[in-house]
């Protein structure tokens, strides 16, 4: 532990953020279940939040972003909740119309 992470820096947080972000993207890309896609989005936003917080943290860097680094994640979280609500409503609507939540079935707009 000491050898590996002698000193936690912003970069370490960024790596975690990156992993979460990519996992989210992959979720969106591979899940056929609409709710799975939603969860992918949640993960993705979460990864972004980690980056913000890391940049804002005075503990990690003296010249940190400051309070913005915490306020923006707050907005992100709130808006994510809103987005989840709407998306769920849409998913439910889709389920009402198609009796499934398989996003691959939602291709009426296919070219």
């Amino acid at each position: 532990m000491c050898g590996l992470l002698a000193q936690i820096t912003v970069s370490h947080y960024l790596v975690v953020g990156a992993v979460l972000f990519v996992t989210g993207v992959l979720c969106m890309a591979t899940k056929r279940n609409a709710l799975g896609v939603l969860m992918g989005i949640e993960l993705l936003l979460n990864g972004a939040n980690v980056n913000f917080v890391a940049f804002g943290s005075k503990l990690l860097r003296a010249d940190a972003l400051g309070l913005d680094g915490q306020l923006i994640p707050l907005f992100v979280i709130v808006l994510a909740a809103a987005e989840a609500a709407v998306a769920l409503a849409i998913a439910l609507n889709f389920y009402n119309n198609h009796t499934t939540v398989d996003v691959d079935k939602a291709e009426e707009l296919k070219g």
Partner: protein
Amino acid sequence: MTIWAATDWYAFFFLLFALLACGFAAAVLFTSNIVRMAFYLTLSLGATAGLFFLAGAEFVGVMQLMIYVGGTLVLLVFGVMLTARAPFLSLRPRSGEWIVSLIAGGTLLFLLIASAFGVRNWRTASDSGPLPLAEAQTATAVGAGLTGVRVDRLNRDAAGHALSQLPHTDSGYLLPFVIVSVHLLVVLVGAAYLARAKVRRRSATESTASVEG
């Protein structure tokens, strides 16, 4: 005792939470059962909240626990109600998509990590030696920021006493706060309207359009 002297709890907890977050995120990715996905997602988000605590953003961390995890709770309920049926429990993508996405995602991850360690200023540690596990006193400051006062940007005099007026550039987040709250209200109303059981398809699509537009 030397081992204790060498132990850095901050690093330890960071590592712990980071591994939990990433591991459960991966579990979300590789599970096809929707409810388990939600379960892992919750754990991942919780671990992230722990990371926020470590980074000194307590308020954000608690928000994360309360809202995100609450939202995921609702997700879970919906998941159970909609798709806890056998055909939906196994909506699996085709292997090829797995491979393509894994390759693309892997490349993206590689790039992101490379750039994360690319900037010296991020790579170099804060000069304050090993990081404290201490909490940062941010709750009030965040609240003030939301009500429009950037207490971290008060322009102070030499003695550290804040001067009477704030620079206008730091006028805080009052307006976004209001906008977001109104937006949230609208969204919730719209979602409720949208999600109510429909009889005919047409009305459903119309309402979808109306809310999205």
